[in-house]
């Protein structure tokens, strides 16, 4: 038994009087982080302690299973807010290090106000906000050795700026991406720079936008089930013709890319009485998922199986080297009759020409698309003219405050964890692309 563990037990027995004199950090036994070597990504130092998250008894058994790492990830609705800030406020002496932040974003990006104009946690300070590495290339900034880089998708040419920033500031330990998608940072240089920096951690805003996209998914399903295109046509022509509609109850939703967004959509779909099947890289992680009826791994066969059983397909996979063009003509050939296809992940995951063909030859009943290979969608694209395509300009998660909330997540949840030396939420693997 290590000394810290016995100290923990001693404190637990003798109660509060001793706890007051001992820093709370010492009460948590130092567990050598999970043997899974992927977790090295978010291990900041050998002193990293693992915070015991409270979970319901039903999940407790699973929560400690290293291969089911849901505790690493943030969900705007379910996760407990402010845990780390609370600890920091109560005992500021617990901080392990300072956070010296650089912010890479477009000028006047108001969504960053919680960072640029707000109150930061104790131990964190913003050194500078800029648009390109040149804005930061001053001795006064360099000598302060910034260790945190906050990147917004609004930053022009971000994929070129990022490797430059990393070379300019070898002191950067942590990159936080304000959005969920990190494909805008992909470049050939980046893996080279990152390999030389094995301790660099990258995190994103996963789980921040899921529930609004889940609402869009159900709306898109109902749009076709109740045949809104026909309703609108009839309304335009002042025709009263009562036609049969279909229910969502009893139908099957297939989710390609069963991450936080997929899970939020599955939650709603299951309340509607739909059956849910899903596809993800690590199917074992969803083995005990009560919402998902069947989960498949990756591969052509798995995708075709999903396409063949699903009435409504939701594509919520990120755009990575593996997923680009994944949903192709072969996949659509396997589609169940009258299928509706919904894409809210990234355009490039779907072969747009194959999708277009399938819509034209009635393989698909219709499609609801919030994302496209090229955005804005070019005015001469055939989608604009098609009655059975619901087009939205990549805005179905764009509530008035969504990006502010993403910045707030960085400021209120991950920054306190960083200064406390805790594991950061939402680690991403740039080599995997998500």
């Amino acid at each position, binding site marked *: 038994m290590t000394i810290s563990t016995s100290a923990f037990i001693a404190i637990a027995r003798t109660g509060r009087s001793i706890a007051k004199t001992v820093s709370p950090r010492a009460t948590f036994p130092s567990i050598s982080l999970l043997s899974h070597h992927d977790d090295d990504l978010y291990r900041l130092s050998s002193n990293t302690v693992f915070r015991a998250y409270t979970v319901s008894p039903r999940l407790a058994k699973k929560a400690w299973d290293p291969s089911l790492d849901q505790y690493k990830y943030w969900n705007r609705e379910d996760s407990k807010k402010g845990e780390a800030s609370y600890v920091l406020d109560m005992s500021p002496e617990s901080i392990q290090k300072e956070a010296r932040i650089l912010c890479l974003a477009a000028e006047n990006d108001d969504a960053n106000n919680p960072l640029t104009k707000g109150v930061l946690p104790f131990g964190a300070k913003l050194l500078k906000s800029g648009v390109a590495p040149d804005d930061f290339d001053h001795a006064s900034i360099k000598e302060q050795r910034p260790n945190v880089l906050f990147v917004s998708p609004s930053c022009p040419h971000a994929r070129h700026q990022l490797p430059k920033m990393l070379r300019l500031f070898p002191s950067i330990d942590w990159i936080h991406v304000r959005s969920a998608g990190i494909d805008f940072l992909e470049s050939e240089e980046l893996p080279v720079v990152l390999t030389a920096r094995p301790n660099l951690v990258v995190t994103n805003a996963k789980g921040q936008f899921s529930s609004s996209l889940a609402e869009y998914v159900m*709306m898109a399903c*109902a749009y076709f089930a109740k045949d809104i295109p026909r309703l609108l046509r009839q309304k335009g022509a002042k025709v009263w013709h009562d036609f*049969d509609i279909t229910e969502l109850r009893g139908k099957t939703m297939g989710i390609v890319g069963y991450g936080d967004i997929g899970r939020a959509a599955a939650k709603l779909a299951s*309340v*509607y*009485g739909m059956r849910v099947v899903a596809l993800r890289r690590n199917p074992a992680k969803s083995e005990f998922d009560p919402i998902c009826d069947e989960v498949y791994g990756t591969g052509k066969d798995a995708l075709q199986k999903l396409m063949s059983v699903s009435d409504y397909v939701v594509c919520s996979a990120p755009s990575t080297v593996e997923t680009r063009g994944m949903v192709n003509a072969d996949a659509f050939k396997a589609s169940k009759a009258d299928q509706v296809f919904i894409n809210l992940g990234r355009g490039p995951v779907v072969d747009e020409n194959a999708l277009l063909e399938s819509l034209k030859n009635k393989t698909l009943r219709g499609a609801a698309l919030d994302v496209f290979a090229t955005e804005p969608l070019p005015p001469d694209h055939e989608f604009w003219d098609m009655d059975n395509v619901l087009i*939205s300009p990549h805005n179905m998660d*764009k*509530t008035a405050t969504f990006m502010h909330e993403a910045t707030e997540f960085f400021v209120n949840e991950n920054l306190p964890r960083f200064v406390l030396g805790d594991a950061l939420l939402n680690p991403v693997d740039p080599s995997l692309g998500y």
Partner: protein
Amino acid sequence: MYWNRETSKPSASHEGEIIREARIIALSDPNDVYNEPLYYGPLPDGSKLLAVGSSAENFDKEEIISQKPNVMFVSHPNSRGPLAKGMFSSTLAEYCMMACSYFAKDLPRLMKQKNNIQWQQYPVLELRGSTLGVVGYGDIGRASAKLAKAYGMRVLGLKRNASSFSDPYCDHLYGIDGLHSLMAESDYILISTPLTEQTRGMISADVLSHCKQSAVIINVGRGPIIDENALIEVLKEGKIKGAGLDVMTIEPLPESSPLWTLDNVLLSPHNMDMTLTFMRESTEFFINENLPRFVKGKQLLNPVDKAAGY
């Protein structure tokens, strides 16, 4: 006492002895395919179908009258409502959430932009955190509330008999006198009452004046519950955001009605519960649930209060 297609347990075996016969006459269209389970059976033990006809004259025959039919099955192609309570609630709940989303994600704007080949991002609203007010918290209201709760909405209800009622899906229940409060607090208002003398014209100009400017009214009850002219006025003037109407005062809706041309109205021809299977399921419910109960002398499901009208 009430059957709900989703949540009621099908009576696997109606234990008990048969204490009387069911001698059925069916006032329905003999060619109605949805009634085939009744016409062609098999019917439960103790029941038999005497005759099928679409009007009283068909039954005015000695051989039918002498057998003293004691059960009448009524099925008119246009009849819906209380006779098959609980049968279509989930379908209408799906429509309710769709209508809410239709306005939350501003689909009218999306349609306009599509027509103009215009790519313009705009902010959308979340249903999460908004309030659904259910006027007439019956089976349909409850099914809608269940979905709304899953979305993270707050649910208010209104019921004739609000006392001693608690429901996990309803955050606060009002009595009849709470109508103005409900209208003032709700972002989305579902009208799901039956049409009775009390509810006719209930949603008047005065009641509508209490609505938020961002309110959306969804009617799945009956057209005459809302003062249609008053509704058209507030829609035209932008005093409420929009309306989703599956029922209208006159159906089919006359061509002259302004509802056809108002941008902020989602119109449907009273078909949002018209699934391919709903009629057939109603007949099957009669055969599989209520007939066995009848012949064994048990209490029947879905009683209708004739005086109340539902």
